[in-house]
């Protein structure tokens, strides 16, 4: 798609009279092709009109900018004509004079006769010949809006901006005008951006519907492609097979937002006073290389720097105890595998949904898939080898170790196996084993391989019992690995403490990323209270080149442990959504019908952004563009369900609405 209008990472911040700031729009990024009709929809107060005004140049963004044909928009101009909601005709001018005002200005170089011709042509275009000499007060609402459209079109704008253009009209007039507008736009290949709250109007007119979440920090929640062929007729569009499913999707989105608005109102009561609400925190972690940010925050005094004076890091034996610790509130926060907050929120293991929030990604990458040396000796050197091996030995059971159902290890291992046509539920057996026990189980021959974080791959490799057939960088580079997981009700109770915690950990992540600090990180990790292993097993990937097989040539893997680079700490929504699809793919949780709401609530970009801003760091989320894993299957964050349907699985896809608010009201 060639970009005609580029809305480039726009923020709009209003200064409040009490000295505070109101972030109306956050990181709006949108590309519009020539001739495209795009609709902005959302509840009132979501900033859609503000966005339109920024496009028009009537308002300036606080961050980012608008490009029209590659040039930045800095002020209003006739190449972006606006059709205002209240028509904005000048009451002292007749219909003709209202249109002429712009024409005479913009086409000042043309001779009088030609300008006259343009004016008359556009009076006819909107069918107002009989009223050409009337003043606006003599016209009906529909006629006024026709004048407003004619005034805009007469200037041959590159982009037509419409702000709820038909909102005040009766149904019949509205229908006629919509069809007229569509026809005009199509004949003249006009690019349009329209703001509306009418879902039927949006469907009838648009090529794409951009749905915005509620303010503050309103952003693009979902984009809907309206693939109904043109020319469209009002009465025929509704018969299109996709019409009602598209319409339902929009209504559903708006309903989710309405609930969010109500919830936000309730939460405002819980805001605490100055200082931190809680300074003694218990934070759970699992002995792994990627617990480094927690260990460093503690050892380098970063927790204390942000006022968290009594942080106890609690070394947990396995992920299950982490879950229990969070559930029964023994732990205030925990290092979690990336899918854990999502799966707990959805209600893993048939338990009631427990909203758990991520506002920080602690680490990315750092995993590998290790197979036993025995398999290597049988010639299994790649995924296709393994598939062939399974096909040739149908009677045997092959067991793999994973650390937790909702961990990236499980999800990536399954994805990796499935991409080769291996059903992870039927062709192999997956068992949950705590990370520190993986090597022992492999040695015993209880399992044939596992997917886990370091140092538990390197240890098997160094000891010669296993080899890494793939690292997670071969599957999905820079995937979110460990996150900070906290109960939502805890955050609502201790918002400032949470902010301090996130800030301390962002700084710790930055420290861990710097390769000059890695020797020190290694020394801390090797201590018995953290990972407690021989540093030799911790070095590969973290400091040294990574060795996939004992005695093999070590290879330099760029960012094997990624803590901070490329804004890796940001809990992006799109990657969270990908995890949701995989949890549903393997039948661990249903796919939430209200996925927009689930993602908004569990991936708290707003809280991350607040912390980042206070640290003077960029606070914007990565673009929500479609992406693919190693096999090239595109994941479009606007169409998770169609992505799910394209993927192989032996599970039946279950789509359900998850009601999060029942348990929340009890806890709050």
């Amino acid at each position, binding site marked *: 798609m060639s970009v005609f209008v580029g809305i480039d990472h726009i923020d709009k911040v209003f200064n409040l009279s009490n000295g505070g700031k109101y972030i109306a729009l956050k990181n709006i990024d949108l590309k519009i092709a020539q001739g495209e009709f795009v609709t902005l929809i959302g509840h009132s107060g979501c900033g859609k009109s503000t966005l339109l005004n920024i496009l028009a140049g009537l308002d300036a963004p606080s961050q980012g900018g608008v490009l029209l044909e590659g040039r930045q928009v800095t*002020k209003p101009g*006739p190449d972006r004509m606006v059709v205002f909601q209240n028509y904005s005709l000048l009451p002292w001018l007749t219909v003709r004079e209202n249109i002429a005002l712009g024409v005479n200005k*913009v086409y000042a170089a043309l001779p009088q006769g030609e300008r006259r011709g343009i004016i008359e042509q556009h009076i006819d275009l909107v069918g107002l010949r009989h009223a050409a000499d009337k003043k606006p007060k003599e016209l009906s609402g529909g006629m006024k809006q026709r004048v407003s459209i004619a005034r805009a079109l007469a200037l041959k704008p590159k982009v037509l901006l419409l702000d709820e253009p038909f909102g005040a009209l009766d149904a019949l007039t509205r229908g006629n005008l919509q069809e007229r507008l569509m026809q005009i736009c199509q004949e003249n290949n006009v690019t349009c951006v329209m703001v509306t709250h009418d879902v039927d109007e949006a469907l009838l007119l648009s090529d794409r519907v951009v749905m915005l979440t509620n303010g503050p920090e309103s952003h693009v929640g979902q984009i809907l492609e309206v693939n109904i062929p043109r020319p469209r007729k009002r009465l025929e569009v509704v018969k299109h097979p996709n019409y009602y499913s598209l319409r339902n999707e929009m209504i559903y989105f708006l309903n989710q937002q309405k609930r969010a608005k109500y919830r936000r109102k309730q939460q405002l009561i819980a805001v605490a006073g100055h200082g931190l609400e809680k300074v003694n925190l218990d934070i759970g972690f699992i002995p792994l290389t990627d617990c480094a940010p927690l260990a460093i925050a503690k050892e380098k005094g970063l927790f204390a720097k942000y006022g968290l004076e009594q942080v106890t890091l609690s070394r947990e034996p396995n992920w299950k105890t982490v879950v229990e610790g969070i559930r029964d509130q023994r732990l205030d926060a925990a290092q979690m595998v990336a899918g854990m907050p999502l799966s707990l929120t959805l209600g893993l293991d048939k338990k009631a949904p427990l909203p758990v929030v991520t506002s920080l990604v602690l680490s990315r990458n750092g995993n590998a898939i290790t197979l036993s040396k025995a398999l290597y000796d049988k010639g299994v050197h790649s995924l296709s080898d393994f598939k062939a091996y399974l096909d040739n030995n149908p009677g045997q059971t092959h067991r793999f170790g994973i650390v937790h159902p909702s961990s990236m290890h499980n999800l990536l291992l399954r994805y990796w196996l499935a991409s080769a046509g291996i059903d992870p539920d039927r062709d192999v057996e997956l068992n949950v084993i705590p990370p520190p026990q993986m090597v022992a189980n492999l040695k015993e021959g209880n399992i044939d391989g596992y997917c886990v974080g370091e140092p538990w791959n390197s240890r098997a490799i160094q000891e010669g019992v296993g080899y890494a057939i793939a690292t997670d960088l071969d599957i999905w580079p820079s995937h979110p690995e460990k996150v900070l997981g906290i109960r939502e009700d805890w955050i609502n109770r201790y918002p400032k403490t949470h902010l301090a915690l996130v800030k301390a950990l962002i700084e710790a992540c930055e420290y861990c990323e710097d390769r000059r600090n890695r020797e020190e990180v290694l020394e801390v990790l090797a201590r018995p209270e953290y990972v407690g292993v021989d540093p030799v097993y911790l070095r590969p990937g973290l400091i040294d080149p990574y060795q996939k097989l004992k005695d093999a040539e070590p290879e330099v893997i760029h960012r094997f442990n990624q803590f901070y680079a490329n804004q890796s700490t940001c809990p992006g929504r799109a990657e969270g959504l990908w995890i949701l699809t995989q949890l549903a793919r393997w039948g661990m949780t249903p796919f939430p019908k209200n996925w927009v709401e689930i993602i908004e609530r569990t991936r708290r970009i707003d809280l991350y952004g607040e912390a980042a801003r206070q640290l003077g760091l960029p606070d914007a989320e990565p673009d929500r563009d479609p992406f693919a894993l190693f096999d090239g299957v595109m994941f479009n964050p606007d169409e998770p369900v169609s992505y799910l349907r394209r993927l192989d699985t032996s599970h039946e896809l279950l789509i359900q609405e998850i009601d999060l608010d029942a348990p929340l009201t009890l806890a709050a």
Partner: protein
Amino acid sequence: MGDKPALPPPTKVFSDTLELIINPFFDNGGTDKGLFWQIWASLQRVGLGFSLSAIVGVGLGILIGSNAKIYSAIDPIFQVLRTVPPLAWLPISLAALKENEPSAIFVIFITAIWPIIINTAVGVQQVPQDYRNVSRVLQLSKREYFFSILLPAAAPYIFSGLRIGIGLAWLAIVAAEMLLGGVGIGFFIWDAWNSSLISEIILALIYIGLVGLLLDRFVGLVSQLVVAEDK
């Protein structure tokens, strides 16, 4: 002064003033002229003074209205000056201008100008954001904006200022003429009082009222012709 003359009944007023009513156009020289001439002289003064205040008032109003800072700085001063009664200006203007005629004009000017300035300024501030947006989108120049948007949009306010202004101007001239003398309806009353001709005063009052009404209607009519209503 001797005894105060008695207030005559309506019939007596009518019979006393019949001469003046049926013959408004006589001119015996000096100040002894028909009521038409008296009123005409006053109207001329009002016309001149009011025109001046309209021009200066609208100009100042637009200037002040287009800048919020100037407006908030100057508005309190206007609010104070506006309450000064017309006649209180008279000694000042006599002292400054020395002559009767210009002083009278100045009193009219200074009386009528305040509502015109204040209303114009408000009108300029109240130009709807929509119209400003239209002008910004069309990239109208300052001049084009002034004539195509600002003046027409502020016109209703300007005219209501003018309407209040003309009423005040008429009020002021009658009072000023009583003190300054010469031909004019104000001095006519004063003259009649000195001659104890209460009936003539009553007739003059009726005429003043009627003329005031006509002036107000006249400005109203002009405003109706010029100002476009939105609704």
